[in-house]
């Protein structure tokens, strides 16, 4: 009889939502299985059904307090598509400006609140101090700049979006916002400051990252998960966070697929796991399923340039020193840092474009049918897919969020950490640190990702040494 040992890590700290990790070992200490169990269920797709389609940008923004603007704009894109309209150029630019603000906020939060403790204090630091307060104590001036940059991003989002956390201005057919001279002046000052701060933070944070890699070379040699990468591109291959086609590149970086959003269900295949509420997604190509990643590192792999000078300069530096494609999870932080600079540069660029002044809305009527839209959320590609009837009522909704697309890789990362830190190494603390660090590299947002209803039992029991230690409730 084989006696298995189960190690549970509950909860994984500093990721949004709640999560459990399981690592099942056989009695001779070998890894049997490992993964992240998602036990929170929100059922948002279900509550969208029966609502006015017009409300989608407002309601879906409330799915999450961390990436609301991504949902707000993905919903707007989907409604434009459903109505068969194109938002006016000024509206497209203003939506993007709002989004750049949100992304500056989100990346700062991720870099400095979620990953800062790992970068500044180190993986081996006592968990009691390896937190954001510890970061502030260790490097107060850097923390102050990072938090200021986050606030600026939120302020840009608020000015254009009407509200900071849950924006309200983007609507089907455009945006209910017109740029006046006061707002323009304020936004120019804010974007200038955001760029200054992000350029100051870049070398400092990069140095912290490289220091950790020197200390833990396994981060670059062992903690590598080769996979396909998915991101969004303009026709010339430049990254686009809000519009454009979805591109998939293989492990070697070869462009394999590029398709418009409405065709996502022909190329991305969802599957239900029997031990988690979160559905896994894979790229389907020539009848084979390929695990893939989304987010900053994936966008770096899948796109050909950022299209702004400072970000592209740093991109070249990355390629020269690290290489491309890159599959080292720790490098999510580096690419996130480059994107932070890109967002600030792009926001400034948008404000200099004359097309930003002009009509911001076109009339909208839903003829009945399907509407699909997507954005590149901070954490990766986010797709909204609605069936809308001729009365403008949502009859079905499907949301594919970034974390569920990264889910297969997150689980592989957990298994890697388990192999490198469990087998013949009875240091539980090092294991916990490694697992948590690996998961946080993906910046998972599990409260968004657990919306899909599965067919799981009413309760999931987590056992340790054969005893029940946790019971998980589910929606019914």
């Amino acid at each position: 009889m084989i006696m298995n040992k189960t190690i549970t890590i509950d909860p994984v700290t500093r990721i949004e939502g709640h999560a459990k990790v399981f690592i099942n070992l056989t009695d001779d200490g070998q890894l049997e299985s490992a993964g992240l169990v998602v036990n929170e269920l929100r059922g948002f797709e279900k509550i969208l059904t029966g609502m006015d389609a017009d409300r989608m940008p407002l309601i879906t923004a409330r799915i999450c307090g961390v990436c609301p603007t991504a949902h707000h704009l993905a919903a707007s894109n989907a409604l434009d598509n459903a109505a068969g309209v194109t938002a006016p150029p000024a509206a497209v630019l203003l939506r993007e400006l709002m989004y750049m603000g949100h992304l500056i906020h989100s990346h700062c939060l991720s870099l400095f609140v979620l990953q800062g403790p790992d970068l500044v204090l180190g993986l081996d630091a006592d968990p009691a101090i390896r937190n954001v307060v510890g970061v502030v104590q260790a490097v107060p001036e850097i923390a102050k700049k990072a938090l200021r940059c986050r606030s600026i991003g939120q302020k840009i989002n608020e000015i254009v979006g009407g509200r900071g956390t849950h924006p309200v201005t983007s609507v089907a057919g455009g945006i209910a916002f017109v740029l006046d001279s006061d707002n323009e002046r304020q936004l120019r000052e804010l974007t200038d400051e955001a760029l200054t701060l992000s350029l100051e933070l870049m070398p400092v944070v990069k140095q912290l990252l490289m220091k950790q890699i020197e200390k833990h070379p396994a981060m670059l040699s062992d903690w590598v998960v080769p996979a396909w990468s998915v991101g969004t591109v303009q026709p010339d291959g430049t990254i686009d966070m809000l519009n454009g086609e979805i591109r998939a590149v293989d492990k070697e970086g070869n462009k394999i697929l590029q398709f418009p959003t409405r065709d996502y269900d022909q190329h991305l295949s969802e599957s239900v796991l029997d031990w988690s509420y979160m559905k896994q997604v894979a790229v389907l190509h020539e009848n084979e399923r390929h695990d893939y990643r989304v987010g900053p590192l994936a966008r770096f792999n899948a796109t050909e340039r950022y299209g702004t000078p400072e970000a592209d300069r740093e991109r070249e530096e990355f390629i020269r020193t690290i290489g491309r494609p890159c599959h080292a999870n720790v490098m999510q932080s580096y690419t996130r840092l480059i994107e932070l600079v890109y967002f600030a540069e792009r926001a400034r660029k948008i404000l200099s474009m004359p097309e930003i002044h002009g009509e911001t809305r076109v009339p909208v009527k839903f003829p009945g049918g399907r509407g699909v839209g997507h954005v590149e959320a901070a954490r990766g590609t986010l797709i909204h897919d609605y069936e809308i009837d001729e009365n403008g009522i949502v009859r079905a909704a499907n949301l594919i969020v970034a974390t569920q697309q990264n889910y297969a890789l997150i689980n592989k990362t957990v298994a890697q950490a388990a192999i490198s830190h469990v087998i013949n190494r009875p240091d539980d603390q090092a294991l916990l640190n490694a697992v948590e660090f690996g998961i946080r590299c993906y910046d998972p947002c599990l409260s968004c990702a657990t919306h899909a209803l599965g067919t799981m039992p009413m309760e999931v029991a987590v056992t340790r040494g054969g005893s029940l230690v946790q019971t998980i409730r589910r929606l019914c």
Partner: protein
Amino acid sequence: MPDEHKNPVVPQKTDKILIVCIGNDLVADDAAGHEVFLRLQRTSLPGTVRLEYAAVGGIALLDRLTGEEGVMIVVDAVQFGAPAGTIHCIPWDELPVLGAGALSGHDIGLKETIEIGKLLYPEKLPQRILLVGIEGRCFNLTRDAMTPETAAAIDDAVLLIQKTAHVSQGALT
């Protein structure tokens, strides 16, 4: 502007009170803070009170402080292990040390936020910071599933906040 973060203006502390109600109005017991906000909007509060609703708490709370507030009352659903509907009124420095997300499903907790504020922006921090926490049980279902005991505690929480605001006002003036 670019150097604003280096040279903060230090305003004078006054008798101003900031009440920030936190929570997702679409999610079961997490909507408790929003319910309190709606009811406080319909009640009489001292003129020096600023009432705000924030979908999420965490570090963004610091953005709401001007440095002029003498008192900040944070209202949120909590899970401290007490029976659902229990109302906690706790000074921030007596908050239990919990993992991230204990007070909010997102961002970082109130205790960490205030600690960061004290370290980085001491000039912005009010003299008193209180958490009015309403114990919830259900945070993974939609609004209609609010726990009856939590829903029943909303009015009492509103009364407590009103009283606290009036008392605080008296203490500050």
